[in-house]
């Protein structure tokens, strides 16, 4: 008799708690699936940390539409099968409102496809293949990071001004590598029809030793090399380029070569004179907005913000503004509000282009140089390409998507 009473009491308590729990305001859940192990983490940690900082501010000010924002992160270890597993778990078990991530373009495309089927908005926070918002873009995917078409245009403009004629393309053998190498080359050929491609080298993603590839490229004696490495390859390749003396002999262009995440990870061992593009530098432009952003990030995390921090900031503020405009926690209303949304950040106003859901980020081209003020190299001779000029025109995207449908 006594035992039954106890069980009955316990059951009532449980039911009571469940009812009480469901009566509380539901959190807005954002699930981030990204690579937090190995070389790519040098880039992605900043996205996660900056996003968390912005979410903290949003929650302290009352949240979004009265709901607190909850962030759940998962490590995909740079592998697509793990990433998809985690994404599915976040969608089905955690019932996230928004998915975010990843640094690997192949993973981003896979999760983008999943989100299209599940009709959940996906914000790409680092991967740059132009297929993401281009040929394979759709209603449910947004990019707060630049893409390879923009990189290609900006990089090609810088290279076109140089006297180099014979090029070599080398990079990681996957989606992003081919996209960025191909795009830079395509735009360069348009600007300078006299350039010649001597050859290409593609190595397996995660290749640890570049010595034999470097010596093989040197044997071909190109005027310059377009290095198409991604999250896993940028840092190790630059290190090898300096260690073998390659960077001193052949001019190199690499996207993110001038970026803090890359240069800080290598430290004083980074090669000088490497050309690169990036979309955020904490020291340029030296505006008050940028200074404030840097100060806030540094106060919390005790390091200067790299480009990932900029993406994290943009993502959080796009989410906040879109929900505010939509007026309700509904995925379709969120997407409608996010299209064309403008957000003001450390580098000024950024627009999320309505047609292809691509953020119109500005590109900065520069050359690496050692300076006494920092324990890492910085970019000098900086040239700015505004977002509106860098982004491919809408009809190019339209054509690419139509071609992909066939």
């Amino acid at each position, binding site marked *: 008799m006594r035992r039954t009473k106890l069980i009955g009491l316990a059951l009532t308590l449980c039911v009571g708690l469940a009812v009480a729990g469901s009566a509380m305001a539901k959190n807005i859940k954002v699930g981030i699936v990204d690579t937090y192990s190995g070389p790519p983490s040098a880039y992605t940690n900043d996205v996660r940390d900056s996003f968390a900082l912005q979410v903290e501010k949003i929650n302290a000010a009352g949240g979004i539409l009265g709901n607190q924002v909850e962030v759940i992160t998962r490590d995909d270890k740079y592998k697509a099968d793990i990433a998809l597993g985690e994404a599915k778990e976040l969608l089905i078990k955690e019932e996230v409102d928004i998915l975010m991530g990843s640094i690997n373009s192949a993973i981003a495309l896979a999760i983008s496809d999943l989100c299209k089927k599940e009709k959940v908005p996906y914000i790409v926070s680092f991967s740059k293949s132009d297929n993401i918002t281009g040929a394979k873009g759709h209603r449910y995917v947004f990019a707060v990071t630049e893409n390879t078409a923009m990189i290609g245009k900006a990089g090609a403009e810088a290279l076109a001004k140089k006297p180099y004629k014979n090029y070599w393309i080398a990079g990681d053998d996957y989606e992003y590598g081919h996209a960025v190498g191909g795009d830079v080359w395509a735009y360069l050929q348009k600007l300078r029809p006299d350039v010649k491609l001597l050859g290409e080298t593609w190595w397996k993603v995660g290749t640890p030793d570049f010595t034999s590839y470097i010596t093989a490229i040197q*044997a071909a*004696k190109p005027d310059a090399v377009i290095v198409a490495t991604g999250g896993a390859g940028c840092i190790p390749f630059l290190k090898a380029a300096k260690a073998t003396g390659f960077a001193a002999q052949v001019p190199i262009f690499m996207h993110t070569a001038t970026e803090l995440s890359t240069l800080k990870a290598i430290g004083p061992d980074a090669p000088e004179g490497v050309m690169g593009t990036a979309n955020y530098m904490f020291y340029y432009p030296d505006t008050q907005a940028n200074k404030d952003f840097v100060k806030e990030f540094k106060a919390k995390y005790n390091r200067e913000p790299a480009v990932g921090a900029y993406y994290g900031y943009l993502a959080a503020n796009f989410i906040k503004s879109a929900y505010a405009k939509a007026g309700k926690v509904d995925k379709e209303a969120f997407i409608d509000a996010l299209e064309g949304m403008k957000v003001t950040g450390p580098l000024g106003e950024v627009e999320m282009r309505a047609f292809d859901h691509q953020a119109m980020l500005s590109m900065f081209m520069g050359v690496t140089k050692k300076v006494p003020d920092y324990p890492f190299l910085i970019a000098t001779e900086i040239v700015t390409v505004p977002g509106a000029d860098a982004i491919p025109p809408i009809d190019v995207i339209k054509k690419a998507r139509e071609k992909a449908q066939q």
Partner: protein
Amino acid sequence: MIFAPQVTLTALGQQILVGLSKTTILFIVSSGLSLVLGVLRIPNVAHGALYMIGAFLAFTFTQYMGGSGPAFFAALLLAPAAVALLSLLVERTMLSRLYEREHMMLMLFTFSLALVFGDLVKMVWGSDYRSLSLPEGFQGSFMIGTLPMPRYSMFLLVVGPLVAAGLWYLTNRTKIGKIARAAAVHREMVGAVGINVSWVFAAVFMIGCYLAGLGGALVAPTQNISQGMDHTIIIEAFLIVIAGGLGNIWGALLGALIFGVADSVGVLVWPQFAIVFPYVAVIVILTLRPSGLLKSTW
């Protein structure tokens, strides 16, 4: 498919030299594996993990001792020794109890060791990117004719034959070497003659694992020091050992030569399919001589 323009004789020669420096690492690691396989009859799957531990330890020791050139050389001496000590510990406490068991047991045990070590490395060192700098004198290249040759590769080209010579001396001229060779052929006889076979095994295992650690320490400045190093090297090492002849150290040298040079030349001659070259070479070897190139001790 770019083929002709850069395949000059100088370029080919340079690639072969770079390939030979790769051979050094492959040889050091495979010879350790071959030694253990030949004498103890253990396919040590944890060999790759020990190589990885060697690399991580080299990184930590260099950092600990100031991060500069001399620190790296000290680490080159200390890291493999530490790996050897670790292996001795494992051998005395766990492995030695399994010698009487069947093969599968030993292999499964080393496999589980590999997994444990792999995760242990992740727990101790974390999964961030780790980078070890070459000492100043080893950075950059110097010119051979018109082509630059990385200095560290030349250093490895010197270390390789030194290790090979040392191993030859050990196995042919020292007492422990001769006993080990005897034990490889007929361990019961060695026991019958009154030699403590158990300690011979311990010594051989230690030497084999020392070589794994040495390979890892040597490779550390040229690569990402990260998880996954163990998986790549163990496959290559086993292929080389099998192609060269089980238990035969000179077979390991030959196999490593073929593997390393095929890899480098492949990159020059056919970049898109470069990664296939060394494996094709192994397939060709095994098709023509299934028991391996040189005589095995099994």
